[in-house]
């Protein structure tokens, strides 16, 4: 318990790693100048390197951000402007009519509830299975463990469409047809291998000395896992949870094959705006924008944990 508290006090980083500002302050000015010259990445000493890197960063931002920005702007255009030839980026007139149409369509609210239920159950299932599996593999380092983790990776290589139809039949046979639980289980098959791999890398980064210290303090193996290791890798768990949640939240194919009236999720409803007879761009983009909000909020809420999780591997050893 004391170990965990100490770790938490240090911001989730093992005690052996000194805090960055104090380390910087103790370096003489001349050495700091030399370090500045040797800096890499966006803080590189050479102006030309910095400029190139900033340009690349800006280009990447545009590449990834523009489609979403265009979607967002389209959602505020009057219907006729959404199909303008040539297309315009900014709406000539801002309107909420697409949001009214999209959210007023029957089944949309129910689909958002279904998506939320499905993603939460799938995320919990993934974590529930991935955390002990990854812990066992990293701590017991057996041959079967290595085979298991490789096998988990192999399942990621199977095209989802190949298992979608058998899964749908199995769920129907089990009486789970058209339920969020069936879809959650299907989504777990997608997120679980990645979750195990992610959690295994996070557990690898936690020094075994911490658990030994906990056992010296009287913890059992499971107690050390629960009280020491899991708080240390909480950032990693957040990262894994985000990935599992997103995998389920945005999944389309299994939702298409396994849901009908009760449990249809929003990605299928969004796709329904494209019909054989045309595409309702305005309503489609409006619903897609609304559907993006929860995951954006979730990411912002868990941002600190995610950054901590991403850098967890850096403290190994």
């Amino acid at each position, binding site marked *: 318990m004391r170990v965990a508290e100490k770790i938490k006090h240090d911001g989730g980083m093992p005690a052996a790693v000194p805090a960055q500002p104090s380390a910087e302050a103790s370096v003489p000015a001349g050495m700091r100048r030399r370090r500045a010259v040797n800096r890499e990445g966006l803080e590189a000493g050479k102006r030309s390197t910095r400029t190139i890197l900033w340009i690349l960063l800006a280009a990447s931002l545009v590449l990834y951000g523009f489609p979403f920005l265009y979607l967002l702007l389209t959602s505020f255009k009057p219907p006729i402007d959404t199909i303008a030839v040539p297309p315009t980026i900014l709406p000539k007139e801002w309107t909420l009519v697409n949001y009214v149409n999209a959210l007023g369509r029957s089944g949309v609210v129910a689909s958002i509830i279904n998506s939320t239920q499905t993603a939460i159950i799938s995320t919990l299932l993934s974590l529930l299975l991935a955390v002990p599996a990854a812990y066992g593999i990293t701590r017991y380092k057996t041959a079967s463990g290595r085979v298991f983790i490789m096998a988990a990776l192999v399942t990621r290589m199977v095209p989802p469409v190949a298992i979608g139809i058998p899964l749908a039949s199995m769920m129907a046979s089990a009486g789970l047809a058209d339920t969020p639980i069936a879809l959650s289980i299907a989504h777990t098959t997608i997120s679980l291998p990645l979750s195990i791999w992610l959690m295994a890398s996070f557990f690898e980064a936690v020094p075994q000395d911490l658990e030994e210290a906990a056992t010296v303090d009287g913890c059992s193996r499971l107690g050390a896992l629960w009280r020491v290791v899991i708080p240390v890798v909480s950032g990693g768990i957040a990262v894994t949870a985000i990935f599992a949640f997103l995998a389920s939240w945005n999944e389309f194919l299994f939702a298409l094959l396994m849901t009908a009236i009760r449990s249809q999720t929003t990605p299928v409803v969004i796709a329904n705006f494209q019909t054989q*007879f045309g595409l309702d761009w305005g309503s489609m983009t409006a619903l897609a924008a609304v559907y993006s909000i929860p995951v954006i909020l979730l990411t912002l809420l868990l941002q600190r944990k995610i950054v901590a999780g991403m850098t967890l591997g850096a403290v190994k050893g």
Partner: protein
Amino acid sequence: MSTRKTISRLASISGLCTAVALVATGCGAGGPASSGSAASSVNVLVEAGGHAELAGVAEACKKDTGLDVNFVELPYDGLFNRLSSELSSGTVSFDVAALDSVWLPSFKDAVQPIDELFTDEAKKDIFPALVKEANIDGHFIGMPAWTNAEIILYRKDLFEDAKNKADFKAKYGYELAAPTTWKQYQDISEFFTKDGMYGTDVKGAVETEWLAHVLQAGSPMVLDDKNNVVVDNAAHKEALDFYTSLVKSAPSGAAQVDWAAAQNLFNQGKTAMTKFWAHAYRQIPTDAAVYGKVGAAPMIGGSAGVAGVPGPWYLSVPKATKNADAAKKFIKCAYDHNDLGIESTLGLAARISAFEKYQDKPGYESFGPLIETLNGKATATRPATAKWQQIVDTVLVPTLQKAVAGGDSASLLAEAKTKIEALVK
């Protein structure tokens, strides 16, 4: 920091509560169960665009028979995947499926005959091409729910403009009016291609329009009645050459123009004429540049007469449903109240009497040309082969795209013949 902790805790607790509640109940938020539907209800699998067509029928059916109708709406491509998976597995979550006409041959063994619904009266009130298409291996397996065909939509305001009329007559020697021959269509297209505007569009990414020209030239499309590939015959070449001749009067990038692009171009006022599915006439947005300025004319005939390629959807009952009686009851309702589809956003029906009931009403000017096209002497449905979609996607559309980009039609059609023969043998 404490707020963040509180939010995190609340989020965790609500997530857990939701999960526990769901595990306990195992239900979704969308409505009743979709499997094992009771005899008093029926689940209908339908493409998202066609859902509105049947919504009115569902209400009427509830009043007439007490049958509750639940719709499972799916996107077009997804619907085919879903049908394929459920019909092949033998476990279905629906009692009625709305099938695109091109899918009927693929699913003919998985749906049950509904011959009793095709009375003599019904057969007289359904367009002949549809009656023929619904009958596979001697049994009727789908009741047409709505149908469509390409007609000519044109800019009435431009056609009625005095200066345009005078200029056109001076140049071509006859009056400017809705075209009734393909020569007139070419002339008008050429005439309006000026000042950033185009006379028509050429759709390289969809094959139906070219195939309508094939029918007008007097040939069966792609396959004859013995399943021989005839895609390289003179009629196909004539039709393709005519089709590509319009490229000079159409916006650039014809190879990529599909239905949506052509409809957008017309609604934006960039093209003076388009050959398009009749439903589009009533779907012109009120804020579109051309709203209130569009006229409709029947598809033009060739040497074999007027011909269009109908685009019907059929209601079928899967063999695997345990609710066949209720399913057939719903299909009977859909036939009886077929005209209710006309009041929907798509605005189509399948019965001749339903279209005739509306054709003289303001706003339904496209129905006269649609009826004429569907009753056209050479109008025919697509070949009844399960490979049709594959033929379209892998051979016909690529061939058309190469042709509109300037490829040699004879060699392209010869190449297409070889590929199609490999697919159908």
